[in-house]
């Protein structure tokens, strides 16, 4: 709650300052009206820094428009820039450029170049707001551009093969970007971050992308808040980073053999708090992950709630809800270097004699049969049979195959109410 308030405040301040900027520059800036017959490049050539280019409705079949001065590009309803399946459409190569309300379609495809609808090169402080992207290769592509604001855009792509697709929003070597309330569907990666620091990804919806909903590499000190990642080919992957905060996101229905709600690889000193993991094949898969806090998350109806590889250490899982998962925790070793505390497990059958809301006997979330399945995946056909039930009971009494120390000493009796 406090977080959303803070975000809202930050948003308001941002808008007010943006308004002032517009008003103050509006006093001297000129407005150019463009129609589809005019050459955009010529108007851009004539315009002065701070001018506004207003695109009236119509299809502009013009591409490779390079903008090297701070302009405002405004699209009226129905103004469409078309790349004719061959070219890049807009290239922004100056600071303080705004692109708002335009539609982009049919950018070129290439396996050599990252052709994009909007490409930003060393363009700091760009603002890309409320645009529409249909069937573009890369949608918005930023490299070495700091303080970008990308807000309220809708990106849709359709292709049958991964090589025909680029990323929706692609950032490379950027700082302090804000990516807010975008909707991305059908791209390769919905949002892609590489070497991006101190940035925020907030309230985006990334669905049905062919690879990852969010792909995150070598990007430190970023936060992503309240996003929804649903039904992506391989879920969300966060790799080789530290200081990442993930709060209030929803990871839903990422199904498949190598599909993860959230894949964490070589992550340290991060936070995964108040997220929801619903009906994924794997809720969280973690490998080489250390000193990370997992609090207040909800794991529901996943195949595996958490796959905790033995290479993880000093992580804390506390006050999470585990409900209706086929398997709660699986691991591939016997050494336990992580802490599980005060979680709610719906499979817990202990008692609470002192009525403090915490169970009096520890809960071992690793199911014996999941260990068998790690070795022989085909054994899944026996899951939930009487035999497996009996074996599991025997294992609970005398742990032989499962790590004895991987347990929650004080499991919670009732689920936390996180709604």
């Amino acid at each position, binding site marked *: 709650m406090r977080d959303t308030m803070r975000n809202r405040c930050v948003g308001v301040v941002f808008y007010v300052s943006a308004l002032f900027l517009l008003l103050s520059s509006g006093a001297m800036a000129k407005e150019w009206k463009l129609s589809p017959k005019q050459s955009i490049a010529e108007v851009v050539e004539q315009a002065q820094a701070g001018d506004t280019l207003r695109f009236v409705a119509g299809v502009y079949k013009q591409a490779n428009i390079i903008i090297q001065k701070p302009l405002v590009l405004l699209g009226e309803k129905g103004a469409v820039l078309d790349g004719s399946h061959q070219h890049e459409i807009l290239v922004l190569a100056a600071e303080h450029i705004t692109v708002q309300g335009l539609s982009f379609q049919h950018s070129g495809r290439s396996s050599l170049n990252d052709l994009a609808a909007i490409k930003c090169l060393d363009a700091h402080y760009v603002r890309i707001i409320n645009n529409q992207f249909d069937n573009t290769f890369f949608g918005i592509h930023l490299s070495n551009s700091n303080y970008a604001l990308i807000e309220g855009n809708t990106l849709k792509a359709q292709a049958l093969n991964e090589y025909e697709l680029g990323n929706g929003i692609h950032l490379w070597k950027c700082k302090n970007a804000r990516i807010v309330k975008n909707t991305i569907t059908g791209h390769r990666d919905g949002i892609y971050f590489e070497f991006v620091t101190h940035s925020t990804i907030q309230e985006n919806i990334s669905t049905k992308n062919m690879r990852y909903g969010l792909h995150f590499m070598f990007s430190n000190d970023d936060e992503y808040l309240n996003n929804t990642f649903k039904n992506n080919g391989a879920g969300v992957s966060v790799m080789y980073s530290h200081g990442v905060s993930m709060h209030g996101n929803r990871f839903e229905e990422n199904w498949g053999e190598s599909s993860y709600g959230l894949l964490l690889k070589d992550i340290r000193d991060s936070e995964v708090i108040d997220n929801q993991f619903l*009906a994924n*094949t794997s809720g969280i898969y973690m490998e080489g992950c250390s000193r990370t806090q997992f609090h207040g998350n909800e794991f529901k*109806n*996943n*195949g595996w709630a958490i796959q905790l590889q033995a290479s993880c250490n000093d992580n804390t899982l506390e006050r999470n809800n585990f409900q209706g998962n086929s398997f709660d925790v699986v691991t591939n070793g016997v050494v336990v270097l992580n802490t599980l505390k005060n979680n709610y497990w*719906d499979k817990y059958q202990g008692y609470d004699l002192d009525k403090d809301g915490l169970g009096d006997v520890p809960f071992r979330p690793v199911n014996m049969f999941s260990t068998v399945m790690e070795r022989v995946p*085909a*054994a899944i056909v026996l899951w939930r049979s009487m*035999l497996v039930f009996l074996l599991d009971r025997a294992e609970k009494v005398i742990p032989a195959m499962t790590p004895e120390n991987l347990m929650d000493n004080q499991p919670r009796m009732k689920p936390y109410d996180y709604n």
Partner: protein
Amino acid sequence: MLRIIKYIMYDILRTRFMFIYFLFLLLSTIALFQLDSEASKVVMSLMNVVLMVVPLISVVFTTIHFYNSYEFIELMLIQPVNRKVVFWSEYLAVTISLSLAFLLGVGIPILLYGANASALMLLYSGLMLTLVFVSMAFLAAVLTRDKAKAIGVGLLFWFYFVLIYDAFVLWVIYTFSDYPLEKVSLALIAFNPVDLARILMLLQLDISALMGYTGAFFKNFFEGYAGFIFSTALLLVWMVLPVGFATRIFSKKDL
């Protein structure tokens, strides 16, 4: 035939066993719904009831009933009635009454507390298991003349399919884990009706986990209707075969 079925049904209702079975299912289902607010967890607990109790009751009740109505059967056969008609009337009457008791006992609370896809699948697989195990119990009953022996054979069927067979499958899967086992494991499952019913439930309850399996063959099986059709078809075979054998034995048997 209808008239014979009617008389047998009266006879079954008179023993009150059916009523107790119905009441047991009704009460335990309601109790599970009361204890747990979450429908999916209730379905999971009920699944154990369906996979264990339903076959057991079907086997025991059918064999006992068959031997208790031995005199009635002998009496009927004195009349100018075909043996097959008598046998099939017995079979249908037992099947219908057990199925009804199950469907009402579990179905009414499910409808009251909210039906969903997995609950309906539970009813369906319970019904199929009833049909299969009644059929098997009839086979066990015609195999011997001794009541205790027949119950023993029926219980052995139950024990074999619920526990022993799965242990064998697990052993095979474990021993040959170096080989691709997808088709083999599915083929092995086909030889056990309880496993087939369980697969029907898994398709509802654990679909997220099932989708994690790497083999393309498995994936096609679990996705869409392939798994459902496969299981249903084989369960029907499991129902028809034992009762078919039983009919043949019964029509030639020296009572």
